[in-house]
């Protein structure tokens, strides 16, 4: 494993780009080079941490057959393009781009390197050498929303989001709908902080939601800081991406854990045996990609039972939080009774359900 920061990267990329391309002449004994670009630092203990854990699982599982590297703190703007391009030039044959905002950059670079395979996390645009993969985090959000509906005394719950992108919007909606299934009067207050990782702003935003009456606050950003605030304030929240209970042993009701390792191992194996093709993966609770951390001891029995019912429903394929009737914020019926929002609709969703108070 080689650890790169972006700056090291610029230096080595300059050197590496003058080397001849090794990829075409690589023989079978050479390890498969796999690279990752991350939106945050691997030490965020959230989203990027979970991807990096998957990368380490890949290394552990395939040993000398793979060689992995990563570049952290890659911005979701045009600067991702040279990073991707240089990783491809350095002989990486499988490149994972692990944030939504890399979507168009991945497609652009993929065109230039038809023999390199790219996998873009949480996006919806594919090509012959671009696969998309995602987790049905919203299933986890439905479980935590159920807990929120049971635990909230004020009837007002919070959601700390990053950007208004489909992944976050469907999370807000799943959380709210699940909470409303318990208590129809539940309202969700929503703040988008326009960042994935900014512990200080995450803390202030959580404080804001708490001051506006929220007593259970879910986070869709990448650090444990919001939970620490909940702990201090005596309210509740959920871990995001990883079990964060040690940061907030009282406040964390549960957590949604992202499990990426199996996907990374399967895709690297597919590269090695030549069966890789462009696909769209969207795994969830059923496949083990989304896990729910053990409930806090303070969660009442009936809340645990209600949450377990949702979890088991997803595992058995008998439950879907996006089952109609679903109304949007303006009160318009978006999904008729008995119908469901398909994964295709969810992948591009840009409207909030009734009961979400958003800017």
């Amino acid at each position, binding site marked *: 494993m080689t650890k790169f920061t972006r700056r090291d990267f610029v230096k080595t990329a300059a050197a590496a780009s003058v080397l001849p391309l090794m990829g075409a002449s690589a023989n079978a004994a050479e390890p498969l080079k796999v690279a990752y670009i991350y939106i945050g630092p691997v030490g965020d*203990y959230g989203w990027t941490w979970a991807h990096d854990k998957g990368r380490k699982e890949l290394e552990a599982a395939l040993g000398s057959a793979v060689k992995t590297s990563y570049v952290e703190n890659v911005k979701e703007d045009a600067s991702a393009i040279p990073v991707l391009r240089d990783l491809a030039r350095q002989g990486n044959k499988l490149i994972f781009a692990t944030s939504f905002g890399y979507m168009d950059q991945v497609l652009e670079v993929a065109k230039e390197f038809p023999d390199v395979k790219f996998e873009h996390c949480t996006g919806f645009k594919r090509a012959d050498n671009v696969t998309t993969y995602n987790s049905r985090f919203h299933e986890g959000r439905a479980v935590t929303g159920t807990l929120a509906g049971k635990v909230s005394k004020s009837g007002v719950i919070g959601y700390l989001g990053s950007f208004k992108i489909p992944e976050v919007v469907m999370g807000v909606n799943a959380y709210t709908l699940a909470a409303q299934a318990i208590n129809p009067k539940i309202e969700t207050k929503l703040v988008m902080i*326009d960042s994935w*990782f900014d512990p200080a*702003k995450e803390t202030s935003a959580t*404080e804001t939601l708490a*001051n506006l009456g929220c007593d259970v606050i879910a986070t869709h950003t990448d*650090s*444990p800081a919001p939970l620490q605030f909940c702990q201090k304030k005596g309210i509740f929240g959920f871990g995001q991406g990883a079990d964060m209970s040690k*940061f907030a042993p009282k406040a964390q009701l549960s957590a949604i854990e992202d499990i990426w390792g199996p996907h990374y191992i399967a895709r690297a194996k597919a590269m090695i045996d030549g069966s890789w093709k462009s696909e769209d993966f969207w795994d969830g609770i059923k496949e083990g990609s989304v896990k729910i951390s053990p409930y806090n001891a303070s969660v009442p029995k009936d809340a645990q039972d209600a949450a377990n019912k949702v979890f088991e429903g997803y595992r058995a394929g008998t439950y879907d939080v996006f089952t109609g009737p679903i109304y949007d914020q303006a009160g318009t019926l978006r999904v008729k009774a008995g119908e469901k929002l398909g994964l295709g609709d969810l992948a591009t969703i840009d409207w909030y359900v009734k009961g979400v108070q958003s800017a």
Partner: protein
Amino acid sequence: MTITFILDALITVIGITTPILLAATGELIVEKSGVINLGVEGMMLVGAIAGFAVTFETGNPWLGILIAMVSGAVAASIFGVMVLSLGANQVATGLALTIFGIGLSSLIGSNYVGIAIDPLDSPFPDTLALDTFWRIVFGHSPFVYFAVFLVLATGFFLNKTRAGLVLRAVGENDFSAHSIGYPVIRIRYLAIAFGGAAAGIAGADFSLVISPLWAEQMTAGRGWIALALVVFAGWRAGRLLAGSYFFGVLMALELYAKASGFAILPSQFWAAMPYLIAVIVLALLSSRDGKGGKAPACLGKPFIPNG
């Protein structure tokens, strides 16, 4: 909207403002001495990890703050050697210090990811801060009181003391100060170390109070805001205090506007608004009295005696 709510919101504002104010106060002294140190972000991160690591290892947050302060000053002194003794370009060296601070803090911090500590509480007994009103007065972390004290003391130092006058003289005309016998280089070293110490304390505010954990680059660009505030405040302590809190109000307003649903404009606009308004207001202020934007005359210029 009740009074309690406004007071609660004010607590958010104070939390947001404090580390920026601390770092900006340190940088004010540095710039008044005629040196510009763009390494604030890096020094804050060094302070953040040093404060966190020492607090975690010893269980003593006060020792953590002390070490954070010393680490910030040491990091700043490296910058001092480069620009004062070796005559390196201040802008480039300051940027290098930021990069160095990010790298060093990430390296040390890799052992501290995923560890939690208890936040540092108010130095006053809980019985003094029972309701929201008294929480405004007594309910903050020690950093809050120290930041306000530091900026006021800095204002007094710069404007009312002989030592402050000397510091300003060094920043306004280093050759004249030198020719009448003031040790320009030594004074600048002290100013730079002070700036680093203040940035180190600001960093510890992040890792001990605001989010009591270590996460790489957890200051998320606040060092740059502190630098900008010094310029916007026209190198004046009083205006720096007011400007920092004004900026804090704008940042909190963004969050409250979004969460209470009265933000009709796009979210990105709200995120950019504090910067936009700060620029406009301070531009107006400085055009009004013509003194607002006056930088120390020697700012950024290397001092080479007899050169």
